[in-house]
């Protein structure tokens, strides 16, 4: 499905709403982990990466401590490779710190079926043995296909499977908002 063939149905968050949600998540990460000692963020390509960087900035603003940010590409861990028509492009995983013993917060834009998170967890375990792994998402839209839940959620959005949630970030899309798209047929 191509996003260009879809029409916008509703806006869920604007730039201010996104900022508030992320700042709140930053506070929650600090609270839940009693500070940020040993905490590291891992952004899942593609839109999890700028979100993780922003969370790191907000955490640094609040606590005065910089937490490391890594980038995870989960392509090689996808469970649908044998069913796709073409091999998706692989991008680099850049986790420059040892994950063993760390409190990792996995960051992604949308939590849907849970399969991406499953792949990301496998990818992380291949890098080492973290103490804990938590999950932060900007949008939880439901429809899980495997037993996975998020520890930090920006906004819960009940959706139908026909709809598409599009998170648009300045770094990638040149605008800052979250919208629901729907087919035009």
């Amino acid at each position, binding site marked *: 499905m191509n996003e260009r063939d879809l029409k916008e149905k509703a806006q869920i968050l604007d730039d201010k709403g996104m900022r508030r949600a992320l700042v709140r998540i930053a506070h929650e990460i600090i609270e839940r982990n009693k500070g940020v000692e040993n905490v590291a963020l891992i952004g899942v390509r593609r839109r999890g990466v700028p979100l993780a960087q922003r969370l790191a900035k907000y955490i640094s603003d609040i606590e005065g401590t910089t937490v490391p940010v890594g980038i995870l590409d989960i392509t090689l*861990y996808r469970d649908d490779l044998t069913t*796709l*028509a*073409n091999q998706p492009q*692989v991008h*680099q995983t850049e986790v420059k710190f040892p994950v063993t013993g760390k409190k990792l917060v996995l960051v992604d834009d949308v939590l849907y079926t849970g399969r991406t998170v499953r792949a990301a967890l496998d*990818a992380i375990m291949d890098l080492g043995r973290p103490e804990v792994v938590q999950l932060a998402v900007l949008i939880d839209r439901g429809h899980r296909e495997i037993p996975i839940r998020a520890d930090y959620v920006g906004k819960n959005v009940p959706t139908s499977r026909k709809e598409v949630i599009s998170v648009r970030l300045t770094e990638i899309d040149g605008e800052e908002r979250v919208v629901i798209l729907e087919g035009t047929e």
Partner: protein
Amino acid sequence: MFWQRKDLLGLRQLTPEEINLVLDTAVPMKEIIGRKIKKTPTLRGRSVVTLFYENSTRTRSSFELAAKFLSADTVGLSASGSSVAKGESLRDTGLTLTAMGVDVVVMRHPASGAAEYLARCIPAAVINAGDGTHEHPTQALLDMFTIREKKGSLAGLKVAIVGDILHSRVARSNIWGLTKMGAEVRVVGPATLLPPDIEQMGARVYTEVEAALEGVDVVNVLRIQLERQQQGLFPSLREYSRLFGINQKRLELTAPDALIMHPGPMNRGVEIDPQVAYGNRSVINEQVTNGVAVRMALLYLLTGGEHNAISH
């Protein structure tokens, strides 16, 4: 851009975009080789056969490790010690492997064109790991990956390939690939070891090594293939070494940051001086690491879905 070919037979057929896709895919693969746990589940349940009708250590182990790092199952077959020694034809061997459910066949064969023939006979993906004096595409891709990693890009670079060009499938694949990517390729060696048609491939031909090395960014030193030198094409190894061997003094003619490459195995003291081979400009060991990364990339791309249908 997606990979669409069933096989990798040579660089002659590939577009610059396809070459870039392979090289780009090899970058994340290299990161995996640097991990403690060198394994991803990507090719779980896929099977790769290495079918070698000629001797090889590095190409074969490189392919087998590449497949294992991506969780594919591998089987190694050599011409000696298999049904080939009993006279089974290449086509029948291919069909037998297909019947066993093989997804990728990596083949080295002494006859030019053997990989293309096999690719037409079987539905599995075929990777040419060297066919006669024709092509050795994965070696050229790993050479290009190494150059690109060190120099940032291939376009505009001057690359000298030194040695036995006539018998070298490595040279042919490198010429096809590098010229497509916008590099200038110079070849130099004894006149008897320079094929007459090499200029038509886009390479500049030199007979004096000093002239060829002038200002180059990369020197790719080929192995003198002792097993193919029984026809008296040059008088002696000593003379070859004196006229074409790459030593410290000749290196001064190149660009100051020129890379020294060699596809291996080296005849140290013949085509390359040990000082140069182990010197700080040598990237010979990195080539070996990069070889695994490039082959992982190819195995990944070639095991894609039903859309990998362009056969040649």
